[in-house]
């Protein structure tokens, strides 16, 4: 790991000032992603700003949302009674992320900002447009079993790795951020950027902006929701495909639906076309399969990851079956 300056400010404004004072500075929360990337020289910040002294760990429930502090640990959110009762898709997505040890360390804010696990991104000996803009893409023409089939470009096909973000996409969560020019709210669907020809730009955060809180809306039918994750191992692995679903069901008919896919796209992938097909349709396997076909209509495999298209469809169908059971 490179040598760096270390600071531990105790307020968000002090953290922002520290960040502004050093080009290339980085925040550290749980450390499970940034320190890993520093060890492999993908990141080498001159200043690491430890934000763990900021008072951002609370989980508060108001009438219409659960407000989760950016520094709340994955374990605490996964085990929170309100989250488990009202938004099981979030609790399950978190409980199936990483390992118990990592969930005790990792934070909600850090999870949303974790970088891709694309092996070429993590190997500084290979080209990667995300790590080194305009250097090329090592994955195109390489080993792509884990790369994305949705939202890709000729410049990057890396999968977004967060499970939580998929559940939050289905929910329409809001990310509250603070920066030197003030506070703002970013809807989750505006938070992540498609790779396009600038894969190194991943979110709509300005440099140095801090995530303060993430608000999870208490969807009226949130209790009928689930997250299904398919991976090589039964536990402790990233998704090959995953689906977050929430359904408003009455008498065998779907009134409203929220669906999103993970493990197959460059950003958490909400499925508006599938939602339209599910709305006011009978909760049958036929309906689910039609929705899944529509969901993957624009998917594009590149050989080694073709299987993900069929896998994602089946994952979505099964998640819908679980949610309607």
């Amino acid at each position, binding site marked *: 790991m490179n040598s*760096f*300056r*270390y600071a531990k400010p105790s307020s968000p404004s002090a953290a922002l000032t520290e960040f502004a004072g050093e080009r290339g500075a980085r925040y550290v929360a749980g450390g499970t992603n940034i*320190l890993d990337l520093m060890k492999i020289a993908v990141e080498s910040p001159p200043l690491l700003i430890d934000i763990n002294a900021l008072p951002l760990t609370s989980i508060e429930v108001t009438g219409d949302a659960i407000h989760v502090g950016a520094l709340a640990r994955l*374990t605490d959110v996964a085990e929170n009674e309100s989250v488990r009762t009202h938004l099981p898709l979030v609790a399950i997505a978190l409980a199936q992320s990483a390992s118990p040890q990592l969930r*005790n360390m990792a934070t909600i804010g850090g999870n949303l900002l974790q970088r891709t696990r694309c092996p070429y991104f993590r190997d500084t000996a290979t080209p990667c447009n995300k790590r080194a803009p305009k250097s090329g893409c090592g994955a195109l023409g390489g080993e792509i079993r884990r790369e994305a089939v949705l939202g890709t470009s000729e410049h990057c096909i890396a999968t977004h790795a967060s499970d939580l973000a998929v559940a939050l996409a289905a929910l329409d969560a809001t990310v509250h951020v603070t920066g030197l020019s003030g506070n703002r709210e970013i809807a989750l669907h505006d938070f992540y950027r498609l790779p396009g020809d600038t894969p190194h730009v991943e979110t709509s955060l300005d440099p140095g902006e801090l995530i303060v809180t993430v608000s999870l809306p208490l969807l009226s039918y949130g209790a009928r929701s689930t997250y299904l994750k398919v991976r090589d191992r*039964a*536990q402790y692995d990233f998704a090959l495909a995953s689906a977050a679903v929430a359904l408003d069901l009455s008498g065998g008919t779907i009134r409203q639906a929220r669906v999103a896919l993970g493990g197959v796209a460059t950003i958490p992938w909400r499925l508006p076309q599938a939602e339209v097909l599910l709305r006011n349709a009978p909760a049958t396997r036929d309906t689910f399969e039609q929705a899944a076909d529509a969901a993957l209509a624009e998917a594009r495999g590149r050989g080694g990851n073709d299987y993900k298209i069929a896998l994602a469809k089946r994952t979505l169908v099964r998640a819908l079956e679980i949610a309607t059971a």
Partner: protein
Amino acid sequence: MLSRRRFFFRAAISTLAAQIGLHFRAAAQRLPTLHPNDSRAARAITINVNGVERTLTVEPRVTLLDALRDRLGLTGTKKGCDQGTCGACTVMVNGRRIDSCLTLAVMHAGDRVVTVEGIAQNGVLHPVQRAFITHDGFQCGFCTPGQIVSAVALLNEGKRLDRETIRTEMSGNLCRCGCYPHIVDAVLEAAGTS
């Protein structure tokens, strides 16, 4: 033309030279000449390790794992992958199990750390340790300190445990020797007795 022997000799010398060069570079990186007030420089921090306040001087980039092993001589905690994927480095911080390879020592000033060396009390093995012996929960033993700390923390978490939930809850600890069935037996027994 070079004889084979000469060739190998030369190759060996140049590898050696390269290694010495690398070594010097690494040493130079390890010991930057910094002003003591520069926050890149080593700083004194105090961490409560296994019930004892320990003051140690570390650069910010030293992981908690390396501080425990190399600075405090507590080599029970193992370094398997150094990237959060194996759990060999599991310790408890303020009662919770974490991977000590993915956190910095300076981030834990004032924290309470328990390593495998602190699990037995007054020379009496913890029920988890006894159960690992009874059920033969290890072969080479490399993953075992992490397994034991993880299992002790798991019992403290107070969840209802059966074979299936133990497998899930212990999934952050890999065992290259594949002792999983015996580890599950051990944790199950300890869960019943502690």
